[in-house]
């Protein structure tokens, strides 16, 4: 999402930019924080303590699950199944509560700091988080019953807006959209940042690259994220949560580009420093694929819109056939269909053009 934070960053210090990165993608604020601090840490060559890295992995993957729950649920709602949406949001709420515990905010956590995280995991977080991870498979079972297995949903998504692997790569798509087309490119595997090389997980891939694959890859990714969180919780080391960073952050002059795998694709941050406490160059959050993903979603919905129009027309037709004659007879024998130009002529009323089809 573009909010001109590149310009805002020019007049703020490095730490002050963190709250703004939340708002780049407020469905996965933790991952946006991570992408930014990752770049500044790379520029300043700060070593992040292990515990902080594990905490980052835990909250980052929770964020990914939360974001995918919105993606899948809202997609189901968009193609006509509001029930699935409500079920995914029910479980997202639990993640939001966990974020509230750890950072004090639900959507805009501003939890990461340059060199670590803002605070240690609060008491009871690990238990509550592992309880959620234990519960997640049953929830995914429910989504599969409600959304994935639903024939209407499948009918409206399978074979719609097929995106070939070549086209996806050419258009610089990344994240689940790219992987749904069968391209194995996940930065957590291809270029392991942070401590991702220590976890055992798979990269789910689609086969056809249609709307259904783009949906189902996300469901599978949630399972893998849960697997990562489980391993991170089990191996959570003790130690400090913030590296050796001075209070005034003053990176050397230079520039850096760092990328992480966000829930919607690659999140790249480009930071240019002139050696002062404020970034000179602008940071560019490359959420390009997000825009494309939405665009693809809408082109996928094209078929659906046609269907909607068809059903609307059907209702109008029925109204014309059944309701209006009765109504019309009662009104004195004249047909009063307000939606149809032919009838309004016969009724002798001039309707504004916007009512005509």
């Amino acid at each position, binding site marked *: 999402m573009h909010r001109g934070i590149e310009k805002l960053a020019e007049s703020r210090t490095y730490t002050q930019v963190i709250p703004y990165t939340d708002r780049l993608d407020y469905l996965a604020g933790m991952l946006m924080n991570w992408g930014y601090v990752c770049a500044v840490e790379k520029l300043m060559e700060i070593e992040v303590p292990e515990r902080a890295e594990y905490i980052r992995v835990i909250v980052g993957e929770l964020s990914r699950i939360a974001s995918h729950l919105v993606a899948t649920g809202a997609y189901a709602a968009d193609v006509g199944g509001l029930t699935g949406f409500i079920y995914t949001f029910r479980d997202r709420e639990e993640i939001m509560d966990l974020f509230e515990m750890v950072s004090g905010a639900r959507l805009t956590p501003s939890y990461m700091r340059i060199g670590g995280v803002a605070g240690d995991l609060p008491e009871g977080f690990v238990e509550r988080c592992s309880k959620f991870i234990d519960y997640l498979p049953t929830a995914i079972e429910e989504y599969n019953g409600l959304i994935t297995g639903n024939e209407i949903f499948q009918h409206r998504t399978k074979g719609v807006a097929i995106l070939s692997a070549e086209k996806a790569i050419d258009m*610089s798509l990344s994240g689940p959209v790219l992987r749904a087309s069968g391209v194995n*490119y996940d930065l957590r595997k291809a270029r392991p940042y942070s401590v991702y090389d220590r976890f055992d997980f798979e990269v789910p891939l689609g086969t056809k690259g249609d709307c259904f694959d783009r949906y189902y890859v996300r469901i599978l990714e949630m399972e893998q994220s849960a697997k990562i969180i489980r391993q991170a919780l089990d191996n959570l080391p003790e130690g400090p949560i913030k590296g050796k960073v001075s209070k005034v952050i003053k990176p050397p002059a230079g520039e850096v580009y760092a990328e992480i795998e966000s829930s919607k694709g690659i999140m790249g941050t480009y930071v240019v420093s002139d050696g002062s406490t404020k970034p000179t*160059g602008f940071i560019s959050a490359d959420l*390009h694929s997000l825009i494309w993903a939405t665009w693809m979603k809408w082109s996928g919905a094209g078929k659906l819109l046609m269907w909607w129009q068809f059903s609307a027309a059907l209702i109008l037709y029925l109204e014309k056939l059944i309701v209006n004659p009765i109504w019309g007879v009662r009104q004195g024998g004249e047909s009063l269909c307000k939606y149809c130009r032919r009838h309004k002529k016969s009724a002798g009323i001039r309707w504004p053009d916007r009512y005509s089809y």
Partner: protein
Amino acid sequence: MTGKPINEIVEELKLNYPLVELSEAGQIILPENNLRELMGQLKDKYGLNFLTNLTATDYLEYFEVIYNLSIIGQSDMVHVKVKVDRNNPVVPSMVSIWGGAIWQEREVYDLLGITFTDHPDLRRILLADDWEGHPLRRDYQWEGGRD
């Protein structure tokens, strides 16, 4: 399997194009005049098939257009920079090489006012069509707001 190291790429490119440079931070600096030819080589010869980021920075004396390239499924990342004259900011468009450049070039055009030649659809992408100026230029002034 990974792609060739950056210094080897630069050495090979230097044979034909003497203006290609390798900066201290490991970034390839390309000349502006035969940029498309060089980029085409980077894609076809060295397999850098994925444009992850295209952006630009204002250094007050000149602009710099930055391309971040990588190879699908591998860990390589190449940082390519091109210096652009600030008074006449024109760069060849990369849309014919990487299709994903289309919106990113529009963004750079919108916010920094760098013109991309042979771009199929160079319009403003974020701001209104009748907006004056390019906000991410560092000398851009805007009246209003809280400050």
